[in-house]
């Protein structure tokens, strides 16, 4: 992501964040536009947290522009197993993040632009922000058919979703962020956002799937840079400030003290998976073994990302009952995670009888259990 350095200057955020005094950038009142130099989803989400927690937005609102390398971002109260194909994410090394705002799941890559509008809680107005974006797009290409729906989506040609919205309201501050599809890989998007996990029952916020389209497909001259610039221009006009985009480095502790801890917290298993509302997995799978196929029923309650209750219903004597109950007891309390389960079952295997046939069955059962995670 190369930014046109002619338009942008990178300087200490400390200079910008003070309450403006006379003589200091006297034109900078009412608004501030910043852009992240990082493509790391956790660092960028941490910047949002930081601004929300620490900046005084009374006199000046903030627009934050950011893009991420491939990542799936779920809403605060969502269930990642329900929302996306975690196996595919692990395979393709796509990151999973949980944001602090509500709403549904989105796929980010460098062809997607993220915009965050920071205001005081009183001045929080999602519709106005989205209208600003539409106005910017229309100023750029008057023939574009884009409009805002009452669900806070932006639709292209009345049918394709090009932007989704979410918001976070705190005690005194609030932010509204939205995506904008410019040139995202739609194939990866649709495959990662399709969950293969069956039998999940939960009260987590579900996502509403939609047909999407890239602005790039509508008009190939619309690149991310062009769009970012147009939106910044419109924001600057409406807030009566310079069209000046300030770059910030989300890893810089001197400018954003405490930011690295925020980024670290967003990456912990406890936040990403552990914050999943309690859910139940009730499903079954078939095991083919030596000319027979058996049906195994599984029922698990998962709370805080850990297996709270586990029931495995195996046909009689396929595995010694002692062994089966050992597996169930060990899984209880363990993270609902295939890697954790691997470590657990391979350790348990050490104290299993050294019977090749028995061990094959054990391995088959465990592999299938891991597929549920």
């Amino acid at each position: 992501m190369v930014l046109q350095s002619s338009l942008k200057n990178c300087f200490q955020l400390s200079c910008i964040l003070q309450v403006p005094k006379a003589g200091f950038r006297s034109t900078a009142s009412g608004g501030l536009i910043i852009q992240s130099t990082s493509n790391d989803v956790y660092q960028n989400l941490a910047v949002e947290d930081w601004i929300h927690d620490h900046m005084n937005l009374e006199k000046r609102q903030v627009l934050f522009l950011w893009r991420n390398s491939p990542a799936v971002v779920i809403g605060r109260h969502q269930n990642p197993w329900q929302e996306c194909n975690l196996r595919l994410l692990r395979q393709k090394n796509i990151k999973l993040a949980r944001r602090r705002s509500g709403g549904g799941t989105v796929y980010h890559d460098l062809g997607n632009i993220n915009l965050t509008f920071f205001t005081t809680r009183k001045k929080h107005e999602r519709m106005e922000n989205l209208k600003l974006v539409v106005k910017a797009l229309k100023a750029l290409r008057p023939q574009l058919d884009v409009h805002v729906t009452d669900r806070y989506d932006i639709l292209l040609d009345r049918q394709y979703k090009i932007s989704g919205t979410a918001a976070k309201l705190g005690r005194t501050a609030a932010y509204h962020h939205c995506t904008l599809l410019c040139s995202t890989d739609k194939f990866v998007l649709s495959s990662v956002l399709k969950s293969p996990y069956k039998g999940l029952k939960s009260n987590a916020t579900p996502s509403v799937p939609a047909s999407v389209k890239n602005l790039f497909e509508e008009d190939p001259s619309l690149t991310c840079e062009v769009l970012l610039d147009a939106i910044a221009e419109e924001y600057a006009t409406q807030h009566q400030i310079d069209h000046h985009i300030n770059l910030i480095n989300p890893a810089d502790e001197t400018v954003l003290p405490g930011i690295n801890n925020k980024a670290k917290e967003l990456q912990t298993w406890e936040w990403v998976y552990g914050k999943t509302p309690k859910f139940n997995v009730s499903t079954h799978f078939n095991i083919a073994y030596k000319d027979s196929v058996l049906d195994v029923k599984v029922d698990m309650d998962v709370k805080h990302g850990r297996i709270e209750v586990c029931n495995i219903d195996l046909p009689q004597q396929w595995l010694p009952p002692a062994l089966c109950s050992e597996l169930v007891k060990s899984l209880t309390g363990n993270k609902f995670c295939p890697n954790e389960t691997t470590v657990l079952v391979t350790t348990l295997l050490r104290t299993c009888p050294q019977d090749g046939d028995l061990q094959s069955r054990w391995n088959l059962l465990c592999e299938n259990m891991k597929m549920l995670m």
Partner: protein
Amino acid sequence: MAALGAVRSSGRAARRLVCIQRVRSCSSVRFIKSKYVCVFDKSALKFSHQQRLFRTSAVSRGQIVQFKLSDIGEGITEVTVKEWYIKEGDSVSQFDSICEVQSDKASVTITSRYDGIIRKLHYSLDEIAYVGKPLVDIEIDASKGVAPAEDVVEAPPMSHEEHTHQEIKGHKTLATPAVRRLAMENNIKLSEIVGTGKDNRILKEDILNYLAKQTGAILPPSPKAEIIPPFPKSETVPAPPKDKAHKIPVPVSRPIVFSGKDKTEPITGFHKAMVKTMSAALKIPHFGYCDEIDLTELVQLREELKPLAQIRGVKLSFMPFFIKAASLGLLQYPILNASLDENCQNVTYKASHNIGVAMDTEQGLIVPNVKNVQVCSVFEIASELNRLQSLGSAGQLGTTELTGGTFTLSNIGTIGGTYTKPVILPPEVAIGALGKIQVLPRFNGKGEVFKARIMNIHQKLPLQEHSPKL
């Protein structure tokens, strides 16, 4: 500052009339601590807020107040309660987060308006909560409710000058009632403590640390050492007030208030499995054997080979050499690469030398193995070891890597240990533990002292009639 004083005094007058509403008005101009480069000027907002929430009813000690769900905005009348941050019986301070509610695509953090103790939650998770209706019941402690921000109420020994002194600094100390009580009992001024909690909140740990420093000091500690800002300074904002340099009197002895409690947790999952494994291991009849090895020449060899390996993208440690050496030994003594059945009646000699390497990861003590070392070169072993190590630190080791081991090496030397007594990992029958390589004086063949690289190796071997020397 004068204007501030005027505003503050009028605020105080207003506060006398207001009983329920804790008025954090003018005195809540937060002192500009250097950690944040932004100025929080909430005074204007708070003052108007205060007027809106003005109440005149009298409050008795411990009155239960119904904290209603305030207006969310955007015409929203109902939300879903998604997470509670507190439970009944917890004490809260003003501005503590109470719960997270969701409306459409907005997630809203509801914070407490009062200091007090939560007495009732009106909704359970996933229930719909209504704006304007009670969310939680909070029991307010009236004695603390009237003047919450100033310490003068909680710390009687403080003189009037101190109180004024604090006011002039405009320092608002955030702390829960429990923490304030602790400070008061120990005659500590909250202004002297640096809070490490959110929003500079003073936590119990901060008081305890302060106390610990007090009792441990022989000389009055220098103010700079005592008060350390939690975050780096910024050049544009002035440093922490230097006038915090009071002479802190050093007491001879203080009763340390320690409120730690024993915590019992069930052993589950992986740890339980390891306990089972180790118990089984200790049942295998075995004996330990130690020796000291002179590795001077190996150290030299590795130095020569390290850059060659690096060119090929492989990090060469000592382990690949030991692993290969172990395999060569196992060729001579295959009984050590075997497995006993459950009743110790049959022994299976394993053909492959799958040598496990113990790794300490976040998940615990994990032992992936390098397969078929008997046909691998030192370089190939090093390469495979690198792969296992990166998978191990990412927590992504798979079943293949973690099963099928026939012999294990444990390297306690990596954490600096020189001696160790390892535990055999069933179904294997032997394990070798390597200590740290130390530089020690030894005699060579000519009787001269030279600098030798010595490592201790400790093995657990199965009991056999003719115990081999590895």
